[in-house]
């Protein structure tokens, strides 16, 4: 019952949370990533996410499958938005439910970290001073650590 999607329309986090949960689960987790108004000390007015959509969907499915097998729950819903977003918009939402809280916490964290490492999605930031730039990201397959965001 896992759910994975790359979408262009706004994400409603409560809709994602409703996709998980079961009578046998005692823990429901919802992680919501939103666009913030600054990066590296510069005010940001908006961002554009671009994806290699066909590959992004399959990589996201692969990441969720790994989380399922590692943390023992298949109640996982993950959605990433692409296109133009403004401050406060939801860019990613991850919902997990499991028998006990640790599985959900760990699975949610694993999925988010792997998205940062290898989901073929790129972010261009638009700054208040008129500049724009692609966010420095992670090189898939490399052992480098990325700055937590």
């Amino acid at each position, binding site marked *: 019952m896992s759910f994975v999607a790359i979408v262009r329309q706004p994400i409603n986090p409560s809709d994602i949370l409703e996709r998980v949960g079961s009578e046998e689960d005692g823990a429901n987790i919802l992680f919501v990533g939103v666009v913030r108004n600054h990066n590296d000390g510069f005010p940001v007015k908006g961002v554009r996410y*671009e994806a*290699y959509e066909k590959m992004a969907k399959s990589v996201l499915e692969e990441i969720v499958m790994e989380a399922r097998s590692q943390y023992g729950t298949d109640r996982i819903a993950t959605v990433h938005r692409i296109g133009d977003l403004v401050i406060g918009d939801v860019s990613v939402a991850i919902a997990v439910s499991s028998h006990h809280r640790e599985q959900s916490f760990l699975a949610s964290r694993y999925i988010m970290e792997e998205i940062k490492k290898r*989901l073929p999605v790129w972010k261009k930031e638009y700054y208040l001073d008129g500049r724009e730039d692609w966010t420095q990201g992670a090189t*898939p397959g490399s052992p480098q650590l990325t700055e937590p965001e």
Partner: protein
Amino acid sequence: MLFFASYREAVGLGRMNVRLPIEAKVSDLISELHSKGENFTCLPDSVVVAVNHVYSEPATMLNDGDEVAFIPPVAGG
């Protein structure tokens, strides 16, 4: 071939076709592009490549009709 994000902007196009010798590898394709010079020099020697939506190695063999994507550092989330 597909170019995304910063690579698309640096190369100046998002998609192009190329003819390669039989039994060419990903590394041969990268060398071929570098030999064209100009905008393709933006692609690092160790550029990340996906063949038919799967991350691939320089030694990966290419076949007729393969979709090869050049993947800049990713920044989802």
